């Protein structure tokens, strides 16, 4: 202290942040102006009962200009809320090319999802979207894409599946492994029927336990994945589902020879602001709402183990 006290006591920092923050002092302006907390009012235009616990909501922004200009990247999320109850984060499940509405699939679980499930067509909602980082689908051109998903995890991958199907010629192959506890718990059954008819999609469905009339696979997703034994060559593997399924699917990918760079998942966390400020969805220094929700396994491996 004695040496430094005789120096700049006027108060300029004597200890620099240089060892803590390498580029300290460089002001970098924010990218967004306006009010990121202000939702756009939208109207529920269609509700689809997907499974006993999951409904899909198609909503249209009340401001036609907002609706017209809305675009998002597959994998991005949005905050859907009921005024008076609150907002929560959901994957955007519409096709990125869809201009008429924006779609969310919601499993009834807590306060906000209960209020959303109670909505009728014509009701008003608030939407803040798109948010977060989507999948790098352009980088994947020429590769085979393998989707491995369970339960409501299909919602997080739906827009990406649709995108790659719309741009089918850009990708060397599309495989989908989808698992649910029982046949009635598959979401998007109307789409699955169409996918089954196509010969350019390798579709595998599995349920946890045998069931009368079921003709597809039986077994947990990671086990079926290992039976499928897809080749990691020129392939991107993407998984989403319950945390326990993701954990074991990632292990199966590793076993099958997929590198962390080839393996992607999308994370879910409790979120409030959705814009990287309120502080709760961090995994170490990364915020799932702005730095994710999409992460490659290579990126996740860099983060502290606090999922």
């Amino acid at each position, binding site marked *: *202290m004695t040496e430094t006290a005789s120096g700049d*006591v006027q108060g300029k920092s004597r200890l620099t942040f240089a060892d803590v923050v390498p580029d300290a002092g460089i002001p*970098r*302006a924010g990218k967004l102006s306006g009010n990121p907390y202000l939702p756009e009012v939208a109207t529920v235009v269609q509700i689809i009962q997907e499974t006993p616990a999951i409904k899909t909501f198609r909503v249209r922004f009340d401001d036609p200009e907002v609706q017209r200009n809305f675009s998002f990247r597959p994998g991005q999320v949005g905050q859907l809320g009921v*005024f008076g109850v609150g907002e929560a984060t959901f994957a955007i499940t519409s096709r990125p090319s869809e201009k008429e509405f924006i779609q969310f699939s919601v499993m009834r679980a807590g306060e906000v999802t209960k209020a959303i499930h109670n909505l009728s067509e014509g009701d008003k909602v608030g939407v803040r979207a798109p948010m977060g980082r989507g999948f790098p689908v352009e980088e994947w051109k020429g590769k085979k894409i393998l989707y491995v998903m369970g339960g409501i995890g299909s919602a997080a991958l739906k827009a990406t599946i649709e995108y790659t199907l719309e741009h089918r010629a850009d990708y060397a192959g599309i495989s989908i492994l989808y698992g649910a506890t029982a046949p009635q718990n598959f979401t998007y059954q109307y789409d699955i029927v169409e996918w089954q008819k196509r010969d350019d999609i390798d579709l595998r469905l599995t349920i946890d336990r045998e069931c009368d009339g079921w003709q597809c696979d039986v077994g947990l997703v990671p086990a079926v994945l290992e039976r499928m034994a897809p080749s990691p060559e020129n392939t991107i593997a993407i998984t989403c589902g*319950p945390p326990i399924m993701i954990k074991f699917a990632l292990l199966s990918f590793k076993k099958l020879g997929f590198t962390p760079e080839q393996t992607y998942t999308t994370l879910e*966390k409790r979120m409030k602001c959705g814009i990287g400020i309120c*502080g709760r969805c961090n995994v170490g220094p990364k915020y799932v709402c702005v730095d994710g929700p999409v992460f490659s396994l290579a990126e996740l491996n860099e983060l502290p183990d606090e999922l």
Partner: protein
Amino acid sequence: MATKFLAQEQLPALLEALAQGARVVTPVKSDGVVQFELWSPGTEVELDVLLAKQSPKEWVFPQCETYLRFDYTMAPPAEGAEGEAALPHETVHLRTTNEAPRQVIFGLRPCDARGFVQMDQVFGGYGGFYFDPLYNARREATTLFAVTCREPRSTCFCTAVGGCPAGQEGVDALFTEIDGGFLVEVLTAKGEAALAGVATAGGAGIAAPTGVTAGAVTGGALLDATEAQVAQAAEVKMAASAKVEPPFTLEGIRDNLHDNFADSRWHDLCMRCISCGTCTYVCPNCYCFNINDALVETKGERYRTWDNCFNPQYTEETSGHNPRAHKANRFRNRFSHKFWYYPDKYDSLLCSGCGRCIMHCPTRIDIREVLRVMGTPVAATAEGKEA
């Protein structure tokens, strides 16, 4: 920028002059507790107690703030509508609210001012992130007149985190107590503008920057400082700085927090924590918040409130899964946020060394000890234990 002298007895007149164009907030002692409160003529400013119980954070980032009001109504059908469209339908009207009155905070300490500078990063959208209009409107309307810490406390550690008892970061004018009054160093255009309406005597006044109209205000005479007064203030500052011995070194702290992430010492350190969150509420830098809705019949509002990262529900997901289910995880997150995660994302630490968390912790958890322990490589501690 000007350097002035304000006689002790002129302080109320100065505050009164400032209060003509802004609300003035100062530390006030009431029932033995010092807090930042709205000043009005006759209010006694408390500067003998070094730190108010809480920093003036809440005047820029309120504990509870409503930012959206909504109103459900039934709208009549459009003219000539047929079928379902001919029925009245539900609409919702939104109104944003963001009150940002002009204010001068007088009597905060340099560490409190620095707390705002550190928070500015996350709310200001630095690094390409989102700009928070709620915080920034009030921050912009706030002028900070800090007072040099003459007698730092044993819990102060500003010097360890890059500050000092006469620090100028974020300070618009610095007041240093000397014989008979204060040496006033005007440091920013904002400080100049706030003082522009204050009468000056014995020399040139503080010129208002272009575009600022000075009100016709009298009182609060600022005199030109003499050389002796400037020299005395420098001595006061130097003496104060010498009293704050840095209790730990910043160097390597981030890397060691990273390397010690899974270390069992976190469990030992958090043992006596009762997750009350006092440290987060008194902290000038803790900014994590919650958002909630309230609705009464057809009218409601959306508001944000300070949150406490020690609360298990802070990260608990609807499924029941909680990434920070254990107290040690949450404890680790708070210190890692301040000295690892935040510096990773922004150009700043998230601690200005005020020591309030040490003073007010009911179980006497000491951030300096936590950083000394966890900011040290595992190997070094093992050797230390052997020695």
